[in-house]
């Protein structure tokens, strides 16, 4: 509650820029709202934002973020050359309309649901569900419903059940994962004791959430839910307690019939479950579904803030590399957002517009804040929480693997393809890149790249065979036909980085090649390696 007092105190003495931000109308376009709030904070702190990223950097960033790969040099050149004042909006709309958008976003959502990999359910069916849902731009609240209350009889929705299924054997894990994924709240600390640092989270919160979820079980591969069952726990002080179903806001749900069944009822229940098992169908739903109550409570206007703020924060994090609240699972009163009013505005806007994720994404990537350069030519670098400078984002395994495929292909193989042919070709490249992607670590916050990756790039035969080949259709194959080393170097730098080589690069790289007269093909391989293993390739910038 101290936070609220603080905020109240803050609003009474607003600086002019902040005051303007406070007046952003609910009907403002998202990108305008983002910029008003972010710029106000930058001005308030007296910081100087970075310049806007140039067109080449911007199309690379947008293509990586929206469809999970670098642009081809053809796409890049066309964008840079275009004088259409609307070219950015058109690019965003084209990328978001492509099947690759749903594919890439689904992969990101999959990691969000299963950050530890697919061992907890997921994999094929869940990924397909996510991809199909994102393709039709299913509202986020609907996805929440479908994942939490899966309809396993519907072939199209069945995959949604995997999230729960991978966790039903461990109700504590299920409780925490649901809280983290949908509400940005990690209640696991409160499992054993009231949270030492966060007044918001007590054992009642953990067990209150668990009470909604602990009745869920697996019945022969289908999810079932009991209509009874209580959660008891031993608090750090005092006698054992029975947990009420309680949402994170403190809102409780009564279950008037929460009593253990009689022997006869138990027998009837067992028969029904056996019957469902034999019929390979979901067991009958209980009259009172605790899980359905959780979904309803979470989406009720007075408590939906957790749900809407968390998805906004996660989408912001996806495109800016840092959340408005960081870390993503610590959205509580002791960990204030960098831009409280912006988060609130975006959460409200998202709820008011039917949890339309595409709309939110488009708004974010159309903002000036999103388009700032990651380069800042002064020692006086603004605090990263101001979003005054673009953040370097390490590529995901698939972004990296797919981009390597594109950068090592002869750019001419992408030229003159019709849009749907290009889509198809890229999809094939992505498929062929999966094996390599599996060798790369999934980035997290504070991600560190290990020596394992550097050794793989340095000595892995896959790199040699799959990336540094000079067969037909490859960039290195094309280089063989170029006589002049300078020209060949320029070509490779363009293909890998989408820009002209600097003079220093031309000099050093050409010298490297010339020193290897008579075995130029080898030399160009190593030049390409030096480009692809460098930070300019590894990061979205």
């Amino acid at each position, binding site marked *: 509650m101290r936070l609220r007092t603080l905020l109240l105190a803050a609003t009474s003495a607003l600086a002019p820029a902040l005051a303007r931000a406070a007046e952003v109308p609910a009907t403002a376009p998202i990108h305008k709202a983002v910029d008003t709030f972010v710029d106000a904070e930058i001005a308030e702190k007296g910081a100087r934002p970075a310049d806007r990223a140039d067109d080449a950097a911007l199309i690379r960033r947008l293509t990586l973020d929206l469809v999970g790969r670098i642009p081809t040099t053809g796409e890049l050149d066309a964008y840079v050359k275009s004088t259409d004042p609307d070219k950015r909006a058109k690019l965003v709309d084209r990328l978001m309309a492509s099947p690759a958008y749903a594919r890439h976003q689904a992969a990101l959502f999959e990691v969000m649901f299963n950050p530890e990999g697919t061992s907890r359910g997921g994999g094929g069916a869940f990924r397909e569900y996510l991809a199909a849902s994102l393709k039709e731009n299913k509202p986020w609240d609907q996805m929440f419903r479908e994942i939490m209350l899966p309809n396993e009889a519907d072939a199209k929705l069945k995959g949604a059940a995997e999230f729960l299924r991978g966790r039903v054997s461990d109700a504590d894990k299920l409780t925490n994962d649901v809280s983290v994924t949908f509400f940005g709240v990690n209640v696991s600390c409160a499992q054993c004791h009231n949270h030492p640092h966060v007044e918001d989270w007590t054992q009642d919160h953990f067990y209150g959430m668990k009470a909604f979820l602990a009745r869920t079980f697996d019945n022969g591969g289908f999810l079932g839910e009991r209509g009874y069952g209580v959660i008891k726990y031993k608090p750090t002080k005092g006698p054992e307690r029975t947990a009420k179903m309680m949402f994170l806001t403190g809102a409780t749900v009564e279950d008037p019939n929460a009593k253990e069944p009689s022997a006869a009822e138990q027998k009837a229940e067992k028969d029904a479950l056996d019957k469902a098992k034999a019929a390979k169908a979901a067991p009958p739903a209980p009259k009172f579904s605790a899980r359905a109550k959780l979904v309803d409570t979470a989406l009720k206007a007075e408590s939906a803030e957790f749900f809407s703020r968390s998805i906004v924060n996660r989408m912001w994090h996806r495109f800016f590399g840092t959340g408005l609240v960081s870390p993503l699972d610590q959205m509580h009163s002791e960990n204030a957002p960098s831009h409280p009013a912006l988060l609130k505005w975006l959460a409200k806007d998202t709820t008011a517009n039917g949890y339309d994720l595409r709309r939110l994404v488009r708004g974010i990537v159309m903002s000036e804040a999103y388009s700032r350069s990651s380069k800042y030519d002064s020692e006086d670098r603004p605090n990263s929480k101001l979003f005054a400078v673009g953040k370097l984002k390490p590529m995901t395994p698939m972004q990296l693997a797919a981009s390597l495929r594109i950068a090592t292909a002869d750019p001419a193989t992408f030229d003159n393809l019709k849009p749907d042919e290009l889509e198809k070709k890229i999809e094939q490249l992505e498929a062929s890149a999966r094996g390599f992607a599996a060798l790369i*670590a999934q980035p997290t916050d504070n991600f560190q790249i290990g020596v394992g990756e550097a050794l793989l790039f340095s000595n892995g035969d896959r790199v040699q065979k799959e990336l540094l080949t000079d067969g037909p259709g490859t960039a290195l194959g094309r280089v063989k036909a170029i006589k002049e080393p300078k020209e060949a170097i320029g070509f490779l730098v363009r293909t890998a980085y989408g820009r002209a080589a600097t003079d220093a690069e031309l000099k050093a790289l050409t010298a490297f090649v010339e020193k290897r007269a008579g075995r130029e093909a080898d030399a160009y391989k190593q030049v390409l390696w030096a480009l692809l293993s460098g930070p300019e390739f590894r990061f979205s910038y």
Partner: protein
Amino acid sequence: MPRSTFCRSADHALDRRAFLGAGAGAALAANMTALNALAAPDVNGALKKAQKRVILLWLAGGASQLETWDPKPGASTGGPFRSIQTDVPGLRISELMPKMATRIGKTTAVIRGLNTKNGDHGSGAKVMMRGRRDESGLRYPDLGAVVAREMARADSKVPDYVTFYTQTEGRSFAPGDSGFLGARFAPMELTTNNYPEFIKKLDGITDLDHQERGELRELVGKTFEKGRSSETMNSHNEAYQRVRGIMASEKLFDVTQEPEKVRARYGKTQFAEQALIARRLVEAGVPFVRVARAWWDSHGQNFETHQEMVPELDHVMATLLDDLGERGLLDDVMVVTLAEFGRTPGINASLGRDHFASAWSCTISGAGVKRGAVYGKSDALGNKVVAEEMDAGSLFATIYTALGLDPNKNYHVGSRPIPLVNPGIEPVKALVK
């Protein structure tokens, strides 16, 4: 004011000052989190303790305490083997370990009161590699990763954490895992032979090309790095800077580099050769090496299994300790024998012993451990601990303390402080020098 959510401990401030004082670049100073402190080479020198190293002999599948450190000859649960007197008064161990019986007093502490409450291979191995159960939403680093994190030099030319697990049985139960410490401290896993993956240069490239392309990479990267700041980018560059050094450490993995006399002393079994490689690695500064020996899971024919495997363990462990001692390394290198659990005192119908986590044993040798200490007592049949019980947490607190680490030292995951062992857990002082 809302409470600060970031690490502001005095310790950290000190490191930060030391680091800034060392004249490092401004790029690193901004937004430095606890986890990133080690990434800065100049901090590392200030943080580094007298470097201790650990060799973990992982007895995968669960070795029997009754046929090793806690025999019960004559009891209904005792089995056919006798016990023998050791060089520690009052301590008798299985007759299958005659070599260790003459060395405990000078090298080793024996722990006989482990009650770790987990008799499942997978989750038991997780607990015994981490000292605690993973929490939902939080993946703890294992012992190897913590030791690597605490003892490795940022610019180290050797790997930080190496694990040998060549046999297939049980390997998937006990992978090395750096948890929230991330890829920097992830293990180099050797599963197919004694050479790490990707440590050798491919034949298709000359050594000079390999080196010079690395220099090109740095040169091209410099253009990009100018005006950009990112801890992840720093870790990327550090990883590449370590490649040539680690490749040069390839020979450490080559057991044939050892004189024939030394190889003969260890023996030519796979376990013995890997223990010898482990010695080569720690000697060269690798902070943590695990050598897994599988498969002790003797649900049937427990006694044949142990009659075959315990003497090998006895020989390898004794030779390793002798070798470390002769090289003056035993005060800096700790050798631990540990498994996911022990085995039931009760002997089943197949003359086997089953999984048992209620009263089992392990050992810690070298480093800051009190040599010849015996801690923990099981009852006459070996069914339960009757004195000086330890769980995984207190074992880890003891290990950390004997390595000179404060078990209450915090890491920070986001804003949350995570001590090396769960809060309230104490090391066993009787086991530490």
